[in-house]
Structure formats: C-alpha cells, structure tokens
C-alpha cells in the first residue's frame, strides 16, 4: 500500500495531494504532506469509507471519532482512486463500510417510540373522548337536532331512499300505538330532549338514535321481535343513548380521531384500510361502554313502565339467533358487549316479585306491527 491520494483536513475546504503508505508496524496508514509537520497516522481499525457512493472506483476514507456529530467520524477526508490501493482497501478491510455505532441509540428509540405511542393513546382514549363529552354537553339542543336531521337523511340515502321521509311508515293507528309506547316509557321522566320516534320501511333488523332525540326503528326489527316488550326494550335502550348524548359524542370523537389517525397512516400504501380498521377498534371500545350504560338506563325505564327488564335479554337472544347467520355478525360483536353478558345482566335486573302489565294492549300491538301497511 503506497499511493497518492487527495486530502482535505476537515478544517478548510481546501484539498491537497498527499502520499499514503502503510506504517512500519503495518497497523496504520501514514499520510504525508497533509500540511502537518509529522505524517498523520490513521489506525487501520478506525478507517471508515463513506457508503452508497456513486463511483465504485473511488473510496473516500475517514476515521472514527466516537463522540462527534451525527456521523461519528472525523471531518477529514482522504480520496483514494488509484485502482490497486482501492482493491487493497476492499480486500484487507472488511469493516470499511460498517457504520460506527452511536451509543444510546436503542435507548433513545425506545424512549421516543414509547413517548409517541403514549401520546397517541392518551389522545385517542382519554383526551378526545373527554373533549367530545364536554363539547356535546355544550351544543344547543336545536343545533343537535339539525345535525341529527342530516344524519337521518344520510341514513335514508344509505337505505336507498331518494327523498327525505320516503321511508317513513305512518299508518295512523300504528303511529298512535308507537306514541303510546313512547309516552308510557317516558312517563314521569324529565328528559332533556323531545323524543321523536319513527319507523323506516326496510328489511334491515336495526334501531338507532340520531343526535337531538331522534330515534329510528327499522321495520325488520318489528318483524323479528317476539313480543311487544322486546320493542319497548329497544326503545328504552335507544332513549338511553339519546339522554347520554351518545350519537353527538361519537360524532365529535370520530372527527378528532380520524384526523389524528389519518396523519399516522396517511403515507403508505394501504393507509386507508389501517385507518378504517383502527377507527373501528377505538369505536368498539367506546360503544361497549355506551351500550352497557344505555342498557342500565333502559332497565330503569322498563321497570317504571312495569315491564320486565328481562325483555331486553329476550330481544338479544332473538337477535343472536338471527346474527349467527348474518354476515355483519363480526362487526356486531366488535361494537357491542358480549350478548350473553347482556342477557344475564338484563335478567339480573328483573325482580321476581315486581308487578307487570303489558305495555300495549293486543289491538295497539297489532297496529304497531302493521305501521308500514
């Protein structure tokens, strides 16, 4: 190893020709003519070459300096381009292109990674839900109602209706029966909203509460229910959602968390899928709590209306028989507490000695089942 090379000392942007040869003890490169009195000595073990360079016929050498900047090498550069010297370096110095390890990297990665994860989890599961709750409480009821109306429109469109109200079932007797049921359930309660219940004419087995006290039963539910008490239980459950402002709260929380998750998953292929999945999982953990709360609220309403809370459990069993075959089963289990737990809870909330009476008489129940004509 004896060659000429180009040298920059890392102090000024000047370059000079130097002579490079192996030291007498064969443990270092000696650089002569580098502008210092004595030749520079670069121990072989400390030599490093800059990686990923575009010209393989040239090697830019430097040497390790442990407590330096991001590179962990000295700023001085030795450019070797004489083919024999380049070949000698490749042959004898296998660790030439290894990156000097910066101490504490793993610890810093763990710290930053953990911190980032903690911040995101805190935002998604504590701060945004709390904020959503507070904001939902601050929203004037008439605004909430206007928003709920938009949600209903949206739902109607999803179910295939072109015009607003096209799905509404409105046989006079059926409406009267529905209003009677609602009145009996809410009797003596001071509710924050005027409850507005309607029935959509569609095969789907479902019921939901939109913001602002608007509750929708879908005809499939009426068809499936095995008794009037089960429908009363659904209604009581949805009133529970309305009173807890769950729909508004969920909308606000989703607005925040979708923005946040979009930022996290935005920039790689399949990001949209991850976003949807993550939002679904977060939503599930929240709606589970909300569902359990709405159930408990429903027990109270049912008891006061002299209906056994167990009716809610009966309904779940009816639903479970159906959901076993339905393709939406998985999503149902994601967003609702385990059905068997809810059935048990509903049965446990029923007192053996409580007096009961039918929520509607037989004629009114028939009217309600035929509300869609």
């Amino acid at each position, binding site marked *: 190893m004896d060659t000429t090379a*180009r040298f*920059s000392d890392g*102090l000024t942007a000047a370059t000079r020709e130097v002579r490079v040869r192996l030291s007498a003890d064969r443990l270092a490169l000696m650089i002569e003519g580098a502008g210092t009195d004595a030749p520079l000595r670069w121990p072989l073990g400390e030599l490093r070459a800059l990686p990923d360079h575009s010209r393989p016929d040239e090697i830019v050498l430097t040497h390790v300096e442990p407590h330096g900047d*991001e590179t962990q090498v000295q700023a001085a550069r030795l450019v070797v381009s004489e083919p024999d010297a380049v070949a000698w370096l490749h042959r004898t110095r296998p660790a030439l292109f290894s990156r000097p390890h910066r101490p504490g990297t793993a610890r810093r990665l763990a710290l930053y990674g953990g911190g980032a994860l903690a911040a995101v989890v805190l935002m998604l599961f504590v701060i945004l839900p709390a904020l959503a709750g507070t904001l939902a409480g601050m929203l004037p009821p008439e605004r909430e109602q206007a928003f709920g109306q938009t949600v209903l429109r949206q739902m109607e469109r999803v179910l295939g209706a072109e015009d607003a109200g096209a799905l509404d079932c409105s046989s006079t007797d059926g409406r009267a029966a529905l209003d009677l049921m609602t009145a009996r359930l809410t009797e003596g309660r001071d509710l924050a909203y005027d409850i507005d219940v309607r029935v959509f004419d569609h095969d789907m087995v479902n019921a939901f509460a939109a913001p602002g006290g608007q509750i929708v039963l879908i005809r499939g539910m009426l068809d499936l229910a095995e008794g009037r008490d089960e429908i009363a239980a659904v209604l009581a459950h949805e009133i529970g959602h309305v009173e807890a402002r769950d729909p508004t709260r969920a909308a*606000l929380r989703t607005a925040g968390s979708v*923005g946040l998750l979009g930022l996290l998953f935005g*920039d790689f292929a399949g990001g949209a899928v991850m976003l949807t999945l993550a939002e679904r999982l977060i939503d599930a953990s929240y709606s589970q709590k909300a569902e359990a709360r709405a159930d408990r609220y429903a027990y109270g309403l049912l008891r006061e209306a002299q209906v056994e809370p167990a009716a809610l459990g009966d309904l779940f069993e009816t639903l479970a028989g159906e959901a076993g075959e339905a393709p939406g089963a998985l999503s149902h289990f994601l967003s609702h507490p385990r059905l068997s737990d809810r059935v048990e809870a509903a049965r446990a909330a029923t007192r053996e000695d409580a007096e009961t009476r039918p929520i509607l008489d037989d004629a009114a129940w028939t009217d309600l089942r035929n509300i869609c004509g």
Partner: protein
Amino acid sequence: MTDTPPPHPAEAPPPLPPRAAGPRYTGAPYPIFMLGLKTGLLTVLTLGIYRFWAKTRVRRYIWSSVELDGDRFEYTGTGVEKLLGFLLAVVILAVYVGLIQIGLFYFGLTLWTEPETRVEVLARSVAFLLTGAAVLPFVQFAIYRARRYRLARTRWRGIRFGMDKAAWGYAVRALGYMALTGVTLGLLLPLQTFRLTRYMTDRSWFGDTRFRQEGHWTALYGAMRQIFYAVAFGAAAALITYLLEWPLLPPLALPATGIWLVFGLFVYRVRSFAYLASHTVLDGHAGLTASPSVKTIFTRYALGSLAIGLVSSVVFGVLGGAIAIIAGGAGQMAGEDGALVGLVVAALPAMMVYLLGFVFIGAATLALISQPVLAHYVTTLTVSDADALGAVQQRTGDRGADAEGFADALDLGGAF
C-alpha cells in the same frame, strides 16, 4: 520565463483571472434504479419503517454523484435521526390535528342551520378547507426545517453546510406572502418567490461563509410570461364565446387554458430558479451562474413519464391478466363456491402486484425523471471562483433536533 528575473523570490505571481468550475453529475440510471427498488421493497416489507433509511441511502448516492472541482458532495444524514424526528413530529402534530379537528367539527355543528344536502356538502368542504389551513403553518415550518436539515447534512471536502434556526419566522412570512399572492390573484407571485427564497438563502451557510441573495423581485416577471399568455388566451376565449355565442369553444378552450397554465407554472419554476441561483453569492468568495434549459427539462420529464407509463402498463397489465386467469381457473375448479375461492386466490397476488407496482414506479421515477432532471440543473451551474472556496473554514455541527420529521409526517415529499 527567464526574460525578467524575479526581484524577490517571495513575490506573488501576476493575478490570474478567477478559475470558474462547473459541477459534474456522475450518477447512472441502473444503479439508482436498483437502489430505489431494493430500498422500496424493504420499505414495504417493514410496513414503511425503512423509508427513513431508504431516503438516506438514495440521498447518499445522489449527493455523491455531484462532483465539483474534483471532489464529490456527501450526505451525512442518518436513518435513525429521521425516525426519531418523525416520532417527535407525530406526537406534536397528532395532538394538534386531533384538537383542531374536533374543535372545527364542533364549530361546524354550531353553525349548522339548514340541513339541506347542498349546504351539508358546502359545510363539509369549508370544514375541510379550514382543516387544511390549520396545518398550513406547520407545512411552511416543515419546509424550512427540511431544508435546514438537508443543508446541515451536506458536506463538500468535509466542510459542513448549514442554515440558521428560523423556521417560524419563515412560516409567518410564507403565510403572509401567500395571502398577498392570493388577494392579488397571483400578480404578486414573484414577490412571494423572491422574498421567501431570499429569506432562506440569506440564512444558508457553507462552512463559516454565508450565502447572499441578490437581484430584485420584479425581474421575475419575465419568468411569468407563459402564465400571462395562458391567462390572456383564456380571457380571449371567454370573450369570443360571450360575443359570438359560440358554444363549441369552451369545451376546447378550457382544457387548453388549463394545460397552458400548468406549463406556464413549470416554465416559471425553471426560469425563476435560474434567476435566483444566478444572483446567489457565497459572501466574498464566489458567485453562481445557472442556465437550465426549459426545453431539456421538459423533454426529460415527458420522455421519462412516457417510458415509465409504457413499461409499467405492459408489465402490470400482463401480471394482472395472469392473476385474473389463475384466479378464474381456481374458481372454476372449486365449483359452487367458485367466486369466493377465485377472490381469495386473486387477493394476495393482486395486493403484491399493487405494492410491487408502487415500488417499481417509484424506482423508475427516480432513475428516469428525478435524476436526469437534477443532473441537468447541476451541470448547468457554474461557480465563478473555485480556488476561493479553499479558504472557507469548517462550522460546528447542527444537531437538527427533529431532522425532517414534520415534513415526513405531513407528506411533503419532493423527489429526494
């Protein structure tokens, strides 16, 4: 040489004219394509984590392909610091974006009066725009930070480049000038371009020496010529349509105006860069000259896009067809549940082809568009006095706390 013997041996030789030097670009298409392909695949395999190292390695290759006066530039950034910076930025942005979104949504709800479909759409788009505007300060901040990070990790002859810490100052000015450009319908675009470039250039350093932006913003109006032509063309077309009630014109003139406008912006970018770079000096040492050719750059973009489009449509058309045939065959064999089996058989390979296509196009873009365009910009630069650069002294390193994490989190890519 011997006619007049030197009176003193130490006397300086007669001053020579400064020795100008132009950078060379030595990168080749094949190695950078392979590098892009390799690092792109690793990025996919690691669910995106490797992208910080991928970017680092591609930059190392590109920086080292630029050779000035015999010595190559180098890029010293690391993947780890980019990942750490990204994590830091994600925390700050996630908290900010989450709060802003929920706040805007609430604000939207309190304004919600008529739940009409049109209004709903309008309200949504306004909320969307507001959300976009909410991250705009961070976008500007990130642009400056990313540039500072790139400069701080660039060296030539071992000497560091660098940039002052002034990202928020930049963000405030950028928002101000953007508003001004918007209000004047683009008429003050040159002012925005010039002032923002000067803000960055005047804070950039090579070693201990500062860069300085000279020139005047009104000189950039020349670079806007094609934009004015496009606007004039559009206006003329509108006038003719209005006067002659000629219904055939708008469907032709509208897209033509649009394309011309995009072309005009492209020309503006090249020409304004040429002017601004040619009026950049390294204080007391050297000046720059830039003479990029609009035609060459346009040709490189066009040919590169064409080649990539052709190759990828052939390759992925064939692959996609093969998958469809195999899936269909599997479906047939499975009999009754054929459709479902076919879907399952097709899903995995289709996903892989999609991801491979993504990586392939990325690598091809690097090799056939980004690199050739950059090569042209680099090789049409000239440094007025190469020898004067030797006097520049080293500067201390910049820790660069968040690397370019904000730019990465906000998807402000750029080619490299």
